[in-house]
């Protein structure tokens, strides 16, 4: 199979995006675009799985190692499940046609980011992944805050990506070439090298909404429709995590200060994320800060600087993505305020107990995958001597139980409206798949982590 064939999943996504745009002109029914998109995305996921690990292609610009393959498969599956949900519920009140296209394009960008081994390709794929995200965040017309949120997201992330690009330019300057391999071998350029590395990671940290570059997230999430937040807060973040790990592997040897930067960012994110999440009454804003907190845990693994740490970081982000997306999809169905969850147990017991599984996974209570993610992450961090940070992480995960349980308290112990949202099969199946993943993934931790560690 020639190198071109290795990237069939990407072609499928591209084709899917175009097809989604024109599908509804041919078939009059609403949601066909999203359904088609879901089909294409799942095909992409299967083909990515089939293709598996490949050596570098196109002159070393793209490479499919263990991490890239895993993340590609997960990205495609997540977007397939998301599109399945979108097919069911749609992006009320607008049509979901363009949304499906944006989702597919963003996933395509994410897949390329993960496989990139060259600064140029990386920069272009990062922009390809984030631009549809701007549009998704601004997708809803009826809420006057949506556009403001989207603008904030756009301005702040453009600023940081320019800073990142500036860092790329210096890296290119030092190494004389844009390929990661060359940069890795380049002799450490002292202060300039450090500055450029820091600039690069500022951009990525902002993408991952890590403190102190997270400011856009709460406002953008609060403005956007919960459905789009479900996608934007998980898929691009997972891709971003993979890229950070890749860049960390090549830049850390040259810049010894980087792990400390990660540690500081991790501490700030954990503290700020968990504390600010407490008084929130809007689920989107709560999940925004929760995202910041979980990025903090991921950075803790990264700051360990070991192969196990890097694997743990990626595994943890996967373990975070599934439940977080599912919670936001539930919020899209039930209403974005925490009080909208009131009486959920009476209305929709299945949905209520699903939210228990999802929220407990985010807290890190076994047997859900969140706990195994934290177990692997703490092991790596402790091994690298990050005891203080682990203790903070441990304390903060207890605090996180506080605000996650406010949702549960509303769902179970507070009376709410009786009439239930009409049951839509695809949406229910999508949420069920995500919940099953949250429950079952824990059992397969072993093989997955070993597979990821092999990449470093």
């Amino acid at each position, binding site marked *: 199979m020639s190198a071109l064939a290795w990237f069939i999943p990407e072609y499928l996504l591209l084709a899917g995006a175009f097809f989604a745009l024109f599908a509804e002109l041919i078939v009059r029914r609403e949601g066909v675009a999203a359904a088609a998109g879901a089909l294409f995305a799942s095909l992409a996921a299967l083909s990515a799985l089939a293709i598996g690990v490949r050596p570098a292609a196109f002159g070393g610009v793209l490479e499919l190692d263990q991490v890239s393959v895993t993340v590609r498969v997960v990205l495609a599956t997540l977007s397939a499940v998301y599109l399945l949900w979108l097919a069911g519920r749609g992006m009320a009140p607008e049509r979901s046609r363009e949304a499906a296209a944006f989702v597919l394009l963003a996933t395509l960008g994410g897949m390329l980011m993960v496989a990139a081994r060259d600064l140029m390709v990386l920069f272009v794929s990062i922009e390809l992944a984030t631009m549809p995200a701007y549009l998704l965040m601004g997708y809803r017309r009826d809420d006057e805050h949506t556009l403001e949120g989207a603008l904030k997201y756009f301005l702040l992330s453009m600023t940081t990506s320019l800073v990142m690009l500036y860092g790329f330019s210096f890296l290119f300057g030092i190494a004389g070439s844009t390929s990661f391999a060359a940069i890795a071998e380049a002799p450490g350029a002292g202060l300039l090298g450090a500055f450029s590395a820091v600039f690069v990671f500022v951009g990525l940290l902002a993408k991952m909404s890590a403190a102190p570059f997270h400011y856009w997230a709460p406002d953008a999430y609060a403005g956007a429709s919960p459905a789009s937040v479900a996608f934007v807060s998980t898929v691009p973040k997972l891709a971003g995590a993979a890229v950070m790990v890749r860049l960390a592997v090549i830049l850390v040897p040259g810049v010894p200060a980087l792990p400390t930067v990660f540690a500081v960012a991790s501490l700030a994110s954990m503290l700020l994320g968990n504390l600010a999440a407490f008084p929130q009454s809007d689920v989107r804003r709560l999940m925004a800060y929760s995202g910041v907190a979980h990025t903090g845990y991921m950075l803790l693994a990264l700051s360990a600087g070991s192969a196990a740490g890097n694997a743990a970081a990626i595994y943890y982000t996967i373990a975070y993505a599934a439940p977080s997306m599912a919670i936001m999809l539930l919020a899209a169905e039930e209403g974005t305020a925490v009080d909208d969850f009131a009486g959920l147990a009476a209305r929709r017991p299945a949905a209520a107990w699903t939210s228990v599984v999802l929220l407990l996974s985010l807290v890190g*209570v076994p047997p859900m995958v969140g706990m195994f993610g934290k177990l*692997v992450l703490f092991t790596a961090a402790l091994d690298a001597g990050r005891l203080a940070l682990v203790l903070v992480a441990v304390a903060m995960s207890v605090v996180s*139980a506080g605000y996650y349980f406010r949702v549960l308290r509303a769902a179970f*112990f507070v009376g709410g409206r009786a009439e239930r949202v009409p049951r839509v099969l695809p949406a229910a199946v999508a949420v069920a798949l995500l919940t099953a993943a949250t429950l079952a993934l824990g059992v397969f931790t*072993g093989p997955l982590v070993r597979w990821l560690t092999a990449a470093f």
Partner: protein
Amino acid sequence: MLLTAIIFLPLVGAIVTALMPKDRGSVARWIAAGVTAADLALVVFLALRFDVAQGMQFAEKIAWVPQFGISYHLGVDGISITMLFLSALLSLIAVVASWKMETKPTAYFAMLLLLEVGMNGVFVALDFVLFYVFWELVLVPMYFLIGTWGGPRREYASIKFFLYTLFGSVFMLVGIIALYLQTGTFDISAMADLGLPATFQWWVFAAFFLGFAVKVPVFPLHTWLPDAHVEAPTAASVLLAGIMLKMGTYGFIRIALPILPNAANQWAPFITALAAISIVYGAALAFAQTDLKKLVAYSSVSHMGFVMLGIASGTAEGLNGAVAVMFSHGVVTGMLFLIVGMVYERTHTRMIQDVSGLSNQVPVAGGLLAFASFASLGLPGLSGFVGEFLTLLGAWKSSVPAAWVVIAAIGVLLAAAYTLSMVQRVILGAPSEAVSKISDLTVREVAVLVPLVVLTLTVGLYWNSLLRFTDPVVTRIVAMLAGA
């Protein structure tokens, strides 16, 4: 295969009852009763085939996460079989005791069965991660049991219970990981007596102490217990006091002592001090309570103080006494909570001044409550005395400062004070107007209490019925402690 069946049978039951349609409460009841009865039968079958001489038996080991050395490893020895039996028995009793549960019965029985899964699992797990999974699993059903079917301040009590225990257990996780990094495996039985460096042991013991002490509970980490007990429904209280408190002390005996022997010796004086304070503090507070359930809750703090005293002594008598108190407290406090629950169902009040003169109005209830109270204050011939006396013997024999042992002995006197002052006002005397209209216990309610009465008498009169199981294990642990 037997142990896996014992653990996951209730899980199947829980799923089945959870999926039952809401109105089929009665069917859910029978399923729950059937499942718990079958589980108890399996445990008894296991106990009969259990050979006291050998150590760990019925072991099952399947690799789960090989590169981290995590395995699905189960096994049973003398102490865990005792607690497993207690857990299975009290679960069955809890189901039968809540026969007339109307509000959302299917979810209620599902939660009880899920609770049993966690409890059985903790006593049988021999792998740290598995132990931690079951340890945390117990929190979720209990949170919902207290939160949904509890009393007026149930939400506050349930979240407080959840946060306290989660706080402790999360630091335990750090301890577990530290041990893994030091030894390369998560297998508890393999880690026994490895002679780890002393300072490392000290810190890991601190992490474990925090995790277990919250659960025991030891003074000053006990404030969640009274709230949780007062607000929990009867069956949940029985299981909370009967089994879940023992998970903390079982953790000490199964994990802290064998794996970190000289840390245990270093910590012994501190733990004895806390234990003695818990005993006297719990007793004094029980004396001052006006709510029956809170009184029994604080008495649990006092009794568990004896268990900690026994554990800290590190002598054969002390440890045997600790397990004896664990077992007898489970049985006796279970009985107390059941009877208080039954009285509450009839009089709808738990205030001591409103309830008096039970023995005249409802002689069977009064008699059984008196029996349970005397067992609780440690009357010889009943199981309460066995543990308390042995812990005092063990504590005096050990190198622990004598002053604390004297304070603990005074605790026995204070136990008599609060129990009898409760007996005076609630059982004796002329029936109060709340009591004067109530009917006596039904056959079902008495049937629930009879096995507990029989157990209290058998262990009380023939101590070896319990010590036969625990003594071999204890002698091994004491040897390890002496070695360190």
